[in-house]
């Protein structure tokens, strides 16, 4: 039975390279990346010394215009879209623009189930975002894999792949919950120090090949 090739198929070598990349990422992502929560107890600095004023100004500037990158693999995206639309109106927080390029974004809202095949791409989006950058894990799948946790192809939580700052539970979380999470992220950013960066005490993972 002879069948002519109508369409251009990808090479098997490329598929093998992709498979090796996924297996390597899977091997490295056995444990979740720690996400310290000491910042929750930090009191807001009130003394008006010059350094804290610089901090306050920079943090105010950063948290007042967060630019989300596009990382919506599944159904939580619709709650995010609803939060972005006129009724809930994320533009109140200066984040109405969802950037198509991760290089123009500084917060990743991970709205949806992540499969291992998609995981290298999500890691690449995170790597391409400019510092300082934050991640909000949205929904049960984003936090722990949700109902698909024991599946053969689902990443059990985005914190295996990227360091997560805020977790928003729900399946899916309502836009109010997401906005509450975003307010918590504002809170976290406003407690960061530029001189001694308390924001991220996570060691950088080695870069993907």
């Amino acid at each position, binding site marked *: *039975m002879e*069948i002519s*090739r109508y369409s251009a198929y990808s090479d*098997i070598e490329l*598929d*093998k390279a992709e*498979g*090796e990349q996924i297996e390597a990422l899977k091997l490295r992502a056995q444990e979740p990346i720690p996400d310290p929560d000491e910042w929750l107890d930090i009191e807001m600095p009130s003394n008006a010394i010059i350094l804290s004023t610089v901090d306050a100004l920079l943090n105010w500037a950063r948290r007042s215009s967060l630019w989300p990158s596009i990382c919506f693999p599944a159904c939580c995206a619709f709650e995010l879209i609803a939060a972005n639309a006129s009724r809930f109106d994320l533009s109140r927080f200066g984040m109405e623009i969802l950037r198509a390029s991760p290089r123009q974004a500084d917060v990743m809202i991970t709205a949806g189930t992540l499969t291992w095949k998609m995981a290298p791409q999500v890691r690449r989006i995170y790597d391409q975002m400019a510092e300082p950058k934050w991640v909000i894990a949205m929904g049960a799948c984003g936090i722990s894999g949700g109902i698909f946790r024991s599946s053969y*192809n689902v990443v059990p939580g985005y914190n295996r792949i990227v360091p997560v700052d805020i977790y928003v539970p729900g399946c899916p979380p309502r836009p109010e919950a997401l906005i509450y999470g975003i307010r918590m992220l504002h809170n976290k950013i406003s407690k960061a120090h530029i001189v001694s960066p308390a924001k991220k005490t996570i060691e950088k993972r080695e870069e993907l090949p």
Partner: protein
Amino acid sequence: MTISLSGQKVAKQIAERFPEVVSEVTDQAVVVKSESIFKVAEYLKNSQDFKCDYLNYIAAVDYYDYFELVYQLTSREHNHSLVLKTRCYDRDKSIVPSVVSLWRGADFQEREIYDLMGIAFEGHPNLKRIVLWEGFSGHPLRKDYL
């Protein structure tokens, strides 16, 4: 509304053309032997009585003892449809002839069945994993996959 042809009627015409090919007949479907699925499909596509020029889907079911492949075929000209089934009893070396050369729409579906059920399609031009990655071990939709 598309008319569903009864299995008996289809089986009768298949049996006239190819004796000892039909292994089971129900009201809804015809079960044929797996090695002759291609010639039966070719007959159903090209004969004037059936002219099944459209493949709705291919599905695979794991019944522990055997895999069953379900083909739903539709004729746009006669406005009828029928269900063709075949069974594959070998779990380790499951091989079924491919129908990609008859219906191009079978391409990705056969690759998906190969990926998740582990049924190899003989004659498929590009049989490799489509949903999972190269190097994944096992076929997850099999009942014995852990």
